[in-house]
């Protein structure tokens, strides 16, 4: 019962060295753990004021859109003063991981969980359980299933987004727009995108000269959007415009138009962040970029959450006072953020997110 391992010829001095290396690795690991700031939900504020722990869950952590929402949320938490904000989400957007986080926060007994559900079906059991345990649950950016949340902080109605996209493209093409146009979407089953496309099609009737010839999925992949746009340009040589309804598809499509030398001849508009589109706006490929104010979306979410936890927001209220963000309308269970922003050559330099 002596030798667990098959013997080989390694000198004892090597062993000491390896042990040292192993301890160093362990120490390094612990150091990383120790350095990271603790933001545990159970720790309380020193001031003695009642603190509300609010957890903000994005669809996917570490992508620019959600990072900029989080920046707005942090600023709002600071202004309010009675909010302890926890911002965390799955790094690769796995819905089961998001569900586990909601479950964990429920066990910790936080006050509010604000969810942007990447898969409403998968998250529904965890959200329902949180509500049952007395945790306030709201959704933001995308809605959950009925019965899983108390409020939905909605950046803009699908109608407004669809109409604005169509009107903007028509305006960018010029007076009396005429010719074929195409849409590049995320996936053919994406709920948000399909709702927007539905309203784009309704608004299209206002422009009898324009004809929607193709709707292509990009799978939220910039390279794929680039290739699809190249194919579209070849298949429809007189293509007049493209609407990219996915923030990943928009820069890819714009790059394809630029490389094909079609800047200015084929108009493109869509939803994306100013940072991702600045170069294309400045070089003239893109005239208008449309998005809601992501900072304000994060901030409004935190303000609604805080009001819900402290009892300031009561059921049946028709408006909500969001402090510096102004008075927001409440329609049913939805708190509406308000108008969309249109970024163009004149104003895009002022926005950084």
């Amino acid at each position, binding site marked *: 019962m002596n030798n667990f391992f098959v*013997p080989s010829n390694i000198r004892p001095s090597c062993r000491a060295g*390896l042990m040292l290396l*192993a301890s160093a690795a362990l120490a390094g690991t612990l150091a990383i753990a120790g350095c990271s700031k603790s933001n*545990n939900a159970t720790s309380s504020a020193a001031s003695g004021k009642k603190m509300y722990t609010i957890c903000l869950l994005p669809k996917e952590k570490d992508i620019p859109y959600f990072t900029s929402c989080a920046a707005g949320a942090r600023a709002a938490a600071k202004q309010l003063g009675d909010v302890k904000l926890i911002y965390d989400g799955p790094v690769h957007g796995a819905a089961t991981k998001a569900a586990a986080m909601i479950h964990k926060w429920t066990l910790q007994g936080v006050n509010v969980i604000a969810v942007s559900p990447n898969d409403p079906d998968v998250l529904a059991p965890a959200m329902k359980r949180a509500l049952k345990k007395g945790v306030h649950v709201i959704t933001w950016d995308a809605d959950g299933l009925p019965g899983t949340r108390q409020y939905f902080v909605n950046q803009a109605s699908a109608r407004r987004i669809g109409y604005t996209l169509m009107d903007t493209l028509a305006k960018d093409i010029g007076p009396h727009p005429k010719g074929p146009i195409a849409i590049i979407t995320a996936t053919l089953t994406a709920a948000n995108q399909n709702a927007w496309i539905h309203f784009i099609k309704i608004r299209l009737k206002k422009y009898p000269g324009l004809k929607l010839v193709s709707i292509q999925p990009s799978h939220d992949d910039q390279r794929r959007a680039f290739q699809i746009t190249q194919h579209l340009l070849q298949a429809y040589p007189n293509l007049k415009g493209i609407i990219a309804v996915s923030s990943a598809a928009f820069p890819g499509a714009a790059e394809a138009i630029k490389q094909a030398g079609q800047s200015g001849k084929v108009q493109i508009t869509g939803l994306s962040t100013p940072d991702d589109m600045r170069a294309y706006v400045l070089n003239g490929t893109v005239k208008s970029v449309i998005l809601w104010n992501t900072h304000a979306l994060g901030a409004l979410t935190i303000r609604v959450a805080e009001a819900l936890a402290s009892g300031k927001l009561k059921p049946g209220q028709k408006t909500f006072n969001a402090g510096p963000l102004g008075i927001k309308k409440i329609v049913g269970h939805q708190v509406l953020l308000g108008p969309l922003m249109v970024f163009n050559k004149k104003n895009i330099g002022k926005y950084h997110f």
Partner: protein
Amino acid sequence: MTATNGMNALHPAGNKNHGTGPAAGPGALKRLASFPWWHEVILAILLICLLTYAGSVAPMFLRPGVQIGLSDRLWNVALLALPMMMIILTGGIDLSVGSTMSLSAVVFALTFTHGAPLWLACVAAVATGLACGFLNGIFVAWVRVHPLIVTLATLAAFRGVAEGISLGRGISGFPPGFQAIAHHNILGLRPEGWLFIAAAAYTAIVLAKAPFGRYLYAIGHNEMAARYSGIPTAKMKLFLYSLSGMAAGAAALFAVARVDTARANLGYGMELKVITAVVFGGVSIFGGRGNIVGVIMGLLLIYETREFISWQWNNDNLISIIIGGLLITSVLLQVALRAGKTAQ
């Protein structure tokens, strides 16, 4: 092999130096180095350190209610780790467990939504898992393709089929009675937990006492020699891969019950979590070495580390960094220990 070598059934390698070990030289250090359970002891020490630290900074984390509540994410990996351990002991690997889960889940949901009773849908899911595993087994045992290649192919193929027959859609809305199997405790533990404990106990007995267990180590050590000694290597492999598939089918049911949704992306990346836990638990990836105590320690250490980091720091990025650091530490310690043994 006689009954006196009971422990060596877990460590056949221990026989190699029989008779020379203690006689080779005196000294406490050398006797310490020849202790066969070092790896398990180190994992246990690390686990105790972690839990002590966790208890001091976040006492709430150690509450039984919290631990049981969080354990949802442990059992799935644990269930699959048992057959995976035995497969790796023979020198094989099964990369397709996550995809098998996904296919079983989709088959379950489609059977149910097409009007079959719940029990039949459950049977269909487990049978699908079994069939997937059997297919792997046929290729590995009879066609004799390397398991890495076979299961790499089925890793892609099973998920592809799952995506195809479900058209990428999620299927939700199962009866509350079914969802309860993942949300309600029996005698203070999830049903999945009890299933794992029973399976682990049985596996431990088989590995230590039954010929099947010894044959596993023999195959892992030298498959040719094992076959010439009359060990039914092909049949055993066929059995192991089928078992792995069946476990994936069962795990899929619990996973679907937890989120009330069956979708083709279920179990994505599961194979790596399972293999990591098994290898971290001291099972040699080349086969023939390792034991169930180590695997359970490995599972617990990885799981507690992950859950504690998430509990305390709410930082998903940090988890992979620290788990990675832990794995490197364990590998270095293993190498150091092996070097120590040879110093005798």
